[in-house]
Every structure is written in structure tokens, then in C-alpha cells.
């Protein structure tokens, strides 16, 4: 668990429009994702988590910064770019719109092989497709069906098969189970787990659903307006969130059966990303905001328990939480 598989260095995606308004969708994110782990990324919609995921699979061009995969820049040259699909793949949110309605399942699966494994014969390709379908729990007969003939869960299985057919090491799951019913969601989560073990995959698990992320992930990064505000071990983070935003996020998630006691007061809404607040971007909603927060932007710092956090009062909050534990 110590090999860094994917690393981003000061990765930013900045949109500018004609009127010179600047939206920092992703703002200077540096993080490492280790071989074999599941890294969860949570945040409200519009916080830039999907933008971050899309940059990793070459769907969006980063404005600044680098993405290193096994130490190599994936945008280094044209050839490296072409190889991205074989290393990094993506599972999309909506299984209804991510499969081309006019193409059969078999065709959709085979396509990646046609593009990247040019030396395979037709029979060899068909064999791989069958194996892949079998792996995700569908039988061969699905090859000749159209996406509209499948249920949501079956479609998401197909999406997973498509993502894994090139044997990538890294898979970005962008809200991969958000559109599914809970009973099917559990099937897909189990499937993702099994496949991770079988192929020693590394996941970047992007979701707004804290329960799903904290269940799936080894480490979690919490994003707010394009930046990481807290990053650490999943259990530590969900049991003892330190950053006021993380606290708010976790207390607003509604778990079945847990009591309402100790809820943090939730106030305000996500500010417009084109006009982010000065200083700490969270200060407009933060119950502990001081003058320092509205003027200076906090840097990510590491706390004794290994987590990284961007808050001026991180040390203070950390001490308090430790005392409470005692």
C-alpha cells in the first residue's frame, strides 16, 4: 500500500469566459493515490470533484499542473496520451445515458479492443468479451441486446465490463452507483469490491453520498469549491471530522438509525464558484469564522494523526476533539 500509483501536482482547471469571469473548478490539488486503495472524493455538487475525475481520463485538459501515473506524466506526449485508456478507465454515473442507445452491448464492449488491441482476431475478441460479461455476472446472450432492453443494474454491469476490458490499473468511479436503487446499489458495490480484489485495481470513488464513500474508501478527500479541505483515513475522518465543513457534511448525512444528537447547525448554501469568498472559501458558512478566515487562505497542513486539513484553527479543533475523546 506504499506505492504511489497516481499523483497530481498542483492540478487546476480554470474556466474563463468572455467577460473575464474566472471559475476555478479545480484549484491546485496535489494528492497521491496508492496502488490498490480506494480513494474517496466527496463534496456537494459543483465542488469540482467530477471535473477532477474527468481530467484523469483525458476528458478535460488541465489548465495547470501535472498528473503522474506510475511516475510518468500522462500528458507528456501524444503517445502517452493515447495510452491513457489502457491505464485509467472510468465508470459513469448514469447507466441510461452512458451507453449508446443504437449499439448492441457486444459492439460496445468489443470497441475498446478494436481500438487498442489491433493484433487480436475476431474470435479472440469475442472470447474476451464473453469472459468479461461473465465476470460482471451477465451471460453471453446479452451481447446481442440493446441497452434499452436492460435494467439499470444490468447496464451498470455493462459499463463496468467496458471499463475493465482493457485491464486498466486505475478506475475512476464517478457517482457510479448514485442512479441505482439501494438493492441494486449493494450488488454493484459488491461487484466493484470483488473485481478490485481480483485485478488489484485502484479506485477513485467520487460520490456525494457519504455513506457509500465511507463504506467503499480507504482514504477520503473532502472537496469544497475546487479545493481539498480535509484528507485522511476514511474511518478517522468519518468518526472524528475536524474541518468545520467535513463536520457539517457528515452531520447532514442521514444515516438510518443514528440519533439526531450533537448535530452541527447547517447554514447557507454553496457560494457561486465564479465569485468565491475571500480567504478561506468556507468562511461564509462556517460557525467558527473569525477575521483571519475571511482574509487569509489556509494551507493544507498535516495533523499528528496523519490527516491533512486546510483550516486556520485545525490544531485547536484537533486538541478539542482529542480531549473530548478522553
Amino acid at each position, binding site marked *: 500500500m506504499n506505492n504511489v500509483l497516481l499523483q497530481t501536482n498542483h492540478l487546476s482547471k480554470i474556466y474563463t469566459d468572455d467577460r473575464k469571469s474566472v471559475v476555478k473548478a479545480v484549484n491546485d490539488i496535489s494528492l497521491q493515490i496508492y496502488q490498490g486503495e480506494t480513494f474517496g472524493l466527496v463534496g456537494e455538487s459543483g465542488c469540482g470533484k467530477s471535473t477532477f475525475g*474527468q481530467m484523469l481520463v*483525458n476528458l478535460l485538459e488541465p489548465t495547470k499542473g501535472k498528473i503522474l501515473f506510475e511516475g510518468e506524466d500522462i500528458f507528456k506526449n501524444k503517445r502517452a496520451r493515447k495510452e491513457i*485508456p489502457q491505464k485509467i478507465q*472510468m465508470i459513469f*454515473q448514469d447507466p441510461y445515458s452512458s*451507453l*449508446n*442507445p*443504437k449499439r448492441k452491448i457486444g459492439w460496445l464492449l468489443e*470497441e475498446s479492443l478494436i481500438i487498442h488491441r489491433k493484433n487480436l482476431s475476431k474470435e479472440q475478441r469475442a472470447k474476451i468479451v464473453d469472459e468479461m460479461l461473465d465476470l460482471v455476472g451477465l451471460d453471453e446472450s446479452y451481447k446481442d441486446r440493446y441497452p434499452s432492453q436492460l435494467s439499470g443494474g444490468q447496464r451498470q454491469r455493462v459499463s463496468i465490463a467496458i471499463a475493465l476490458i482493457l485491464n486498466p490499473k486505475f478506475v475512476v468511479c464517478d457517482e457510479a452507483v448514485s442512479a441505482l436503487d439501494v438493492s441494486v446499489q449493494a450488488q454493484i458495490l459488491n461487484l466493484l469490491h470483488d473485481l478490485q480484489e481480483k485485478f488489484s485495481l485502484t479506485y477513485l470513488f467520487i460520490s456525494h453520498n457519504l455513506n457509500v464513500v465511507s463504506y467503499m474508501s480507504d482514504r477520503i478527500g473532502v472537496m469544497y469549491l475546487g479545493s481539498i479541505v480535509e484528507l485522511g483515513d476514511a474511518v478517522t475522518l468519518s468518526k472524528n471530522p475536524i474541518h468545520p465543513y467535513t463536520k457539517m457534511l457528515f452531520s447532514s448525512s442521514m444515516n438510518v438509525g443514528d440519533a439526531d444528537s450533537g448535530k452541527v447547525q447547517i447554514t447557507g448554501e454553496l457560494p457561486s464558484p465564479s465569485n468565491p469568498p475571500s480567504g478561506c472559501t468556507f468562511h461564509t458558512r462556517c460557525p467558527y469564522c473569525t477575521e483571519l478566515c475571511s482574509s487569509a487562505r489556509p494551507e493544507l497542513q498535516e495533523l499528528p494523526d496523519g490527516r491533512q486539513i486546510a483550516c486556520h484553527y485545525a490544531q485547536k479543533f484537533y486538541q478539542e476533539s482529542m480531549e473530548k475523546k478522553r
Partner: protein
Amino acid sequence: MKQNRLKKYLSNRNFTLGLIMVSILFLLMVVGFFYLPADPNKIDVMKELLPPSRENLLGTDQLGRDILSRVMVGSRISFFIGFCVVICGGLLGCTLGGAAGYYGGKIDSVITKLIDTQMAFPGVLLALMLIAVFGNSVQNLILALSVMSVPRFARMSRSGFLKYRNSEFVKAAKVKGASDLRIMILHIFPNLLQELSVTATLSFSGAIMSEAGLSYLSLGIQPPTPSFGKMLSEAQNTILTAGWYVVIPAALITMLVLGFNLISDGLNEIYRH
């Protein structure tokens, strides 16, 4: 499944009616390849402007040629030109519109301006100009009519490509590493076929009408090859003495154009529901 789909098409009244009209003429043309009642170009001054009779089912023209035979041969030209124009105009239009819609930005504005300019120019005038410069031939007629039908296809495919270029399944194809060309042809294009078929039938009827118009002005098909437009212009001199001669080509052009328009309306209705 397939039977259901056929049923769906045939239960639409417009579509069925149009299909019947077009099929009659199509059959007439096909039969003409194997059997003609008389030589369509055989001039016989003795039989000038005969009314319909058992011998000449639709009568004869002022040179004594059998009108039924001329109609059977003339429909070939209509279908041939319609077909060629839809293929050429469709290919060119879809390529231009596809590139504009998919890539956007500068490519889009250049292509859109180009098409807008073309549309601002009267179609018949353009055809006249082309024929005046390059000479009077079927190829040039097809070229002129194809250029005229490009904007329709280009606009339709541009809006289609624009709609799908940011769709999730295109993103999914990009993540697979599919090239732009592959995405455009194999992923987006099949999704446009329905709308495209509506545009194609409309263009087909438009081309037939324009061809008739140009032939009427003696700019399209050259005699003695029969064509509906040409026959119409020949018949207008005898409109008072031999009424049937004018009615026949006029009725056939109407039937063909109306048929295709009905098919197009029908398809539109079917796809919308």
C-alpha cells in the same frame, strides 16, 4: 419485434399513403426496364396528338410518340436525380454539419457562415449559373441540385452533432480512446438516422421538383430523353387541343412530390411518438 416496427410504420396514414403513391411510380419505372409498350423516341407524324386509346393507353404527343412509354422512361430520370442528389447533398451536408456541430468554435462559425451565404443565394439562380458556366448535362444538373440541398442536411446534422457531442455516451467513447472520426461516424451518426431519413425524403421530393422546373426551362435534361418537366413544357403549346397531354406529366410530378412529402410527414410523426 421487427413485425411490430413494420406495423407501427404502416399504421401511420400519411406514411402508407405516400408509400403507395411512390410505389406506383416506382413500379412503373421498374417495369419500363423490361417492357415498354412502344419505343419512347419513335417519331410517327401520322399519330400526332392522339387521345388515349387501346393502342396508346395515355395517348401520343405532337411528334406521335407514345406518352405511356415516355412516362415510364422519364420517371427513371426523376428517381435517378433524386437519388443522386440525396446521396451527394447528404454526404456533403452531413460532413460539413457534423464537423461544425462536433468541433464547434472557429470551424463551426466558418461553416455556418458558408451555409448561410449559400442559403441567401436563390437556388434556381445558382443552378442556372452552374449550367451556364459548365454546360448543360445531367452531371451538372445533379451537381447544382446537390449544392442546393446541402444546407438542409448541414443544418440538421449540425444540430444533431451539437446535441450529442457532450452526451455521456460520447464521453464514454472518448474514455475508451476512440478517435473523433470514430465517434462521429460510429457513435453519433446512427443516432441521427431517424431525423436524417425525414430530411432525405424531403430533399428527394425537392430535387424532383427542381429538376422538373429546370427541364421545363430547357436547362436540365436534353431532348430526346424524356423527362416530366420537359414533357410539361412541350405540352403547354397544345393545352387547348390536347388537354390530356398536359395533365399526365403534371399529375405524375404532383404524385411523386406529394408522395415523398407524405412519407416524410409520416416518418416525422412516427419518430415523435
